[in-house]
């Protein structure tokens, strides 16, 4: 249908295929957007890392790689670098975050995490008391999760060459026969479930950064999710995809899955759980909770008929008491993620582009 526009009647343009400008390997530099979890990072991974390092396991494109093992079952391996600033924040610190983050990457593949490795890059001048506090927090997190840190490495760099401490953790887990969760498995008709409130971690960090200076009750949700995953598996629902929506938030994670599975998605804004304090802080800074990082939440996609059963199983677990069915998968050659707004209008939920920056007025 032609539509009346300010320039008169024009035909409806087609949604154009996104042209992706190639990485400028000659003159380009890494900028912050390459680490923000959005499209720029996806491009850096596909056009640089995967291009050089590519193999069948890397090509799975999920949070962890499924590997063959000599005995029964298969292995899952995942790794995650942690560079959070500030090192200590309400609800956690870089130590427990490094343990939880990698356990979750293994768990969302459907595997049982077994062991962790940890590499530390320490900046000259880091108070030992801080390091002690961080490592003690790691130990508590690993013990609580039942996943020990079994090997590690330490490097120290000159002052100014790092930001206090960076921790990289690698996890290994085992995958039971018949479990095959992947971002490429979503099918039209499937239900999309979210385990709890959005944006708690990201807003806890932002509120803590000194330049904001507002007191807030927001606490990071950092948590190990393998227990929740186990109870989801036990309920017998046909689960196709599980992911933890960290950097780039739920919106970016869903766009990644939509692209991997070549499907579209439609969310219901009304069903998205967000804590009032997180909502208020986002409002103040002009941020959208859909794009804010989580460290203790997962999103699951399952067969339509199993959605209620899976929801019941999730809600029975303390880490997913606020779980909700938030949308559906449908067929869409454009792989758009869309949302019915609380107003009954419809809008796109796009990838995060660049870093989410606060608006100015």
């Amino acid at each position, binding site marked *: 249908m032609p539509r*009346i*526009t*300010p*320039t008169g009647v*024009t035909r*409806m*343009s*087609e*949604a*154009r*295929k*996104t*042209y*992706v*400008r190639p990485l400028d390997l000659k*003159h380009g*530099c*890494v*900028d*912050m*957007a390459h680490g923000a979890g*959005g*499209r*720029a990072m996806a*491009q850096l991974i596909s056009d640089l890392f995967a291009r050089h390092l590519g193999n069948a396991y890397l090509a799975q494109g999920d949070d962890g790689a499924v590997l063959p093992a000599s005995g029964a079952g298969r292995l899952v391996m995942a790794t995650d670098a942690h560079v959070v600033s500030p090192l200590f924040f309400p609800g956690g610190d870089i130590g427990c975050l490094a343990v939880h983050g990698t356990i979750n990457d293994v768990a969302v593949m459907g595997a049982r995490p077994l062991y962790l490795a940890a590499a530390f890059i320490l900046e000259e001048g880091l108070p030992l008391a801080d390091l002690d506090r961080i490592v003690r927090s790691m130990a508590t997190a690993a013990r609580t999760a039942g996943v020990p840190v079994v090997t590690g490495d330490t490097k120290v760099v000159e002052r100014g060459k790092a930001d206090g401490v960076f921790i990289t953790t690698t996890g290994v887990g085992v995958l039971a026969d018949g479990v095959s969760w992947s971002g490429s498995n979503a099918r039209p008709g499937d239900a999309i479930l979210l385990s709890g409130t959005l944006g708690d971690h990201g807003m806890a960090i932002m509120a803590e950064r000194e*330049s*904001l200076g507002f007191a807030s009750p927001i606490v990071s949700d950092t948590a190990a999710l393998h227990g929740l995953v186990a109870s989801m598996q036990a309920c017998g629902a046909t689960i196709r995809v599980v992911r933890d929506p960290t950097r780039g938030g739920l919106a970016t994670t869903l766009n990644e899955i939509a692209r991997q599975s070549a499907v579209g998605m439609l969310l219901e804004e009304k069903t998205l759980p967000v804590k*009032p304090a997180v*909502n*208020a802080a986002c*409002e103040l*800074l*002009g941020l959208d909770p859909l794009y804010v990082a989580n460290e203790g939440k997962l999103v699951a996609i399952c067969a339509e008929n199993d959605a209620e059963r899976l929801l019941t199983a999730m809600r029975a677990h303390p880490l997913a008491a606020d779980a909700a069915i938030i949308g559906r998968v449908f067929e869409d050659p*454009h792989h*758009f993620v*869309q949302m019915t*707004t*609380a*107003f*009954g*209008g*419809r*809008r*796109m939920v*796009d990838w995060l*582009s*660049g870093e989410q*920056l*606060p*608006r*100015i*007025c």
Partner: protein
Amino acid sequence: MKYIDEFRDGSLAQKIAAGIGREADHGRPYHFMEFCGGHTHAISRYGLADLLPDNVRMIHGPGCPVCVLPIGRVDQAIRLALEQDVTVYTYGDCLRVPASGGLSLLKARARGADIRMVYSCADALALAQQRPDRQVVFFAIGFETTTPPTAVVIRQAAALRLTNFSVLCCHVLTPPAIAGILDSPEVRDGQTVPLDGFIGPAHVSTIIGSRPYEPLAEKYRKPVVIAGFEPLDVLQAIRMLVRQVNEGRAEVENEFSRAVDRDGNRKAQALVAEVFALRDHFEWRGLNVLADSALRIRSRFAEFDAENRFPVDYVAVPDHPACECGDILRGVKQPQACRIFGTVCTPENPVGSCMVSSEGACAAHYTYGRHKDV
């Protein structure tokens, strides 16, 4: 969220939309421009266009501070950081605006420039105090809303006798920009951009009041409704504009009576007048050079004027030849009609400024509305 959710009530929105549907005369089209990018964002984010009858159309205006910033102004900030070795502080939205030579403030930072984001200009002043050995420039952009805080920090810097703090002042004014649009040939011919009224930004009017729009409404015979940024505010303003058009009125009305009055914030106005004076002319992206449309720092505070302290004269730079931001900012074109929209120009690699800020018309359509182009 108290005091916010009340203005995002979906069922009430449906009622107001139904009211617009009843009151709009089906025999004629209505074209209203939302001047401000904040309104563009609200319309896109909440899907408000879907609620309006087919004959009521919204045209996106130029009221997004980074969208109207010409390349030459961003170049000045980059030159300050790269050539004069100063630390440039600015608002987050500015960082990705395309500048000359494929640069932006963000890309200049990756090349070693000391450019940092602040949430408030007061933070920039505090950081200057902490680093007395370093020249610090605050790159100040924005409409009347962000101007009083800049005036405050310049006064504070003067009181503290700071010698390492200055401001690159790119503050612009709303009423002259609206007049600029109404004077453009595309609007004056009455065909290319049919305009039946404006939604004015409430936050600007908390400072300047609603009075400055009165001469515009009278001279050009266009109704103006000052509106808040919540979706119900926008819908209510559209309804008020439809009524004015139907009744043949061209008045300034205030939807945002919870914070705006006719006179605005006199204290803020006095502060701004003390520190700033009108620039004779200022180049806007899309609107060309407009007289008396922007502010400069008064000579009394000249030592805090970065353009005075450093050799960074403004050099006008034409936009990328394929970029149609100019037409989009004047309402002549819709974002999706631009040749490079969504192909070469995307939020990751913006060619024009309208693709940068979430308040820019192109970024809003790209982020929220592309499904409608299918």
